[in-house]
């Protein structure tokens, strides 16, 4: 529709795996220190999806931070909006805005809330989320638009396992099953916890990959902290098979810091200064 003649500058960063792992450690350290500084919760949920975000933004997504509204860009929607503290760090490091902007995190009148703002308020954001179950339907609309507009961008929506409680996730899954947008990818950050309990016990979540298959999707299970596997699966899919793709990424809530891993207290707990130092030491990041 618009800008059809302009050549897109959106491209993959395609950084090597060891570099992605280094960035992921940095992101984790920054999220933890920011949580302490700004008293922002959801640390466990942020740490479980860091590797997925880094693989997407620093390897796979065809984007240009200098031109965040490029019509040909790949779209990434953080459907689990409470992972915003992780996304804000990643977008800054990728160059969508100055890292110094994050100094104003959580300040009155600022833009960095606990959930992503609307796209017109922060470059790099594709959809304002925070209420769960919204990102996949929006992503489906974007994916179908690419078909109508004869563009070849891909759309990735990152969901949490708890989010899969929402009926709208499965409404979108069914419509995608019918429409078969091959450019749509749902990544489920399967950290086995939701806010107040084990996600397989609160509601009957499993068998998660089979559920997506039953809804007409290609589904793959991977270790969501294996950077090589993440890069491999995100690059290989969408494959053009025509089917939407679900990637069930097995993750650990609080990943990267021994005393936070798989401890659901860190859904809401804020680290002390000592805990921040200990976390930095474990991550091998200099404060």
């Amino acid at each position, binding site marked *: 529709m618009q800008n059809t003649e302009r050549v897109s500058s959106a491209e993959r960063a395609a950084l090597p795996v060891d570099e992605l792992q280094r960035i992921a450690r940095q992101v984790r350290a920054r999220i933890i220190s920011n949580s302490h500084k700004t008293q922002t919760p959801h640390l466990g949920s942020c740490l479980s999806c860091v590797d997925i975000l880094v693989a997407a933004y620093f390897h796979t997504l065809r984007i240009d931070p200098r031109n965040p509204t490029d019509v040909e860009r790949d779209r990434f929607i953080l459907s689990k909006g409470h992972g915003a503290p992780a996304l804000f760090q990643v977008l800054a490091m990728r160059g969508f805005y100055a890292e110094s902007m994050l100094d104003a995190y959580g300040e009155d009148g600022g833009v960095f809330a606990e959930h992503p703002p609307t796209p017109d308020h922060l470059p790099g954001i594709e959809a*304002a989320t925070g209420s769960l179950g919204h990102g*996949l*339907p*929006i*992503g*489906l609309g974007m994916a*179908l638009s690419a078909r*109508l507009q004869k563009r070849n961008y891909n759309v990735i929506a990152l969901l949490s396992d708890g989010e899969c409680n929402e009926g*709208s996730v499965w*409404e979108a899954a069914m419509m995608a099953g019918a429409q078969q947008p091959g450019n749509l990818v749902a990544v489920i950050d399967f950290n086995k916890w939701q806010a107040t309990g084990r996600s397989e016990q609160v509601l009957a979540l499993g068998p998660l990959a089979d559920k997506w298959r039953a809804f007409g999707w290609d589904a793959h299970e991977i270790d969501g902290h294996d950077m090589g596997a993440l890069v491999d699966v995100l690059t290989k899919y969408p494959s053009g098979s025509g089917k939407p793709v679900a990637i069930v990424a097995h993750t650990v809530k609080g990943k990267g810091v021994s005393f936070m891993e798989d401890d659901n207290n860190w859904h809401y707990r804020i680290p002390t200064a000592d805990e921040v130092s200990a976390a930095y030491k474990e991550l091998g990041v200099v404060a």
Partner: protein
Amino acid sequence: MRNAFADEITKLGSADPRVVLLSGDIGNKLFDKFKQNAEGRFFNCGVAEANMMGVAAGMALSGMRPVIYTITPFTTTRCFEQIRVDACYHNVPVIIVGTGSGMSYAELGPTHHSCEDLAILRTLPNMTVLAPADEVELRLCLRAALKINGPVYMRIGKKGEPIVHKNGAALEIGHSINVRAGGDVCLISTGTMLPVVMKAADMLAERNIAARVESFPTVKPLDQEILQEVFSRYPVIASIEEHSRIGGLGSSIAEWLAAQDNMKGRLVTFGTDDEFMHEVGSQDYARRKYGLTAENISQKVFAALDKSAR
């Protein structure tokens, strides 16, 4: 009205490749021409309205112009949060059409009635709220809505509504349409009540009361200019809507009126009662039950005018 909608959206969809029509599994055959003329741009989203709203917002964020069509409660109360977050918070051009609004589907029972939609949708920031009176207003509303760069809600009737604007009309979003001149009292109608209100004006004329009639196809933004004028001029102004008296056009005018200084006019509101209609009945039955008839409107307005003169 729904046939006029189908016809108009087909014309608009043929002319503008951004127009996409999303249906919640209704309108079988109704949109055959749209499907032919706008190939690939019709999506039956099934009975899954929350997803449909999100899909529409995603399309609008990608430069398309989605239009959602389904039965009113299912495209409003059912997926209110998706309207609020996906369409209004993002401030994207999604047009939401609620068919069979008010008591159009009276026979189907309260699950299919919609007397709350204007109330809840006008609370949403960025939302424009439209309620055309007949197919002439509907076509004009739809055309105007496609030019708005934000979310629009439009409630329409079902089929066979009489045409009031037989010689056409000019419509601008946010402005009322004068349908009848009169110096004694002013009747403000929104949506498909207009033919009834015109008849009420006839009945008032028989009692030597000259009623001015204004049609309000736009409920939000409210036409404050015309309200200023009529409340300065007339002793009695009546609002008539097939919607609860809580939160609709009448409430909206009352909110405005409460903030004004020294207005001459007094507001009388007509709408449905604060209850679910449990008994079976047609749309006409429902209108009679809630006093939305020309007889009742003219009588109450006459009484209010009489009281104001004393």
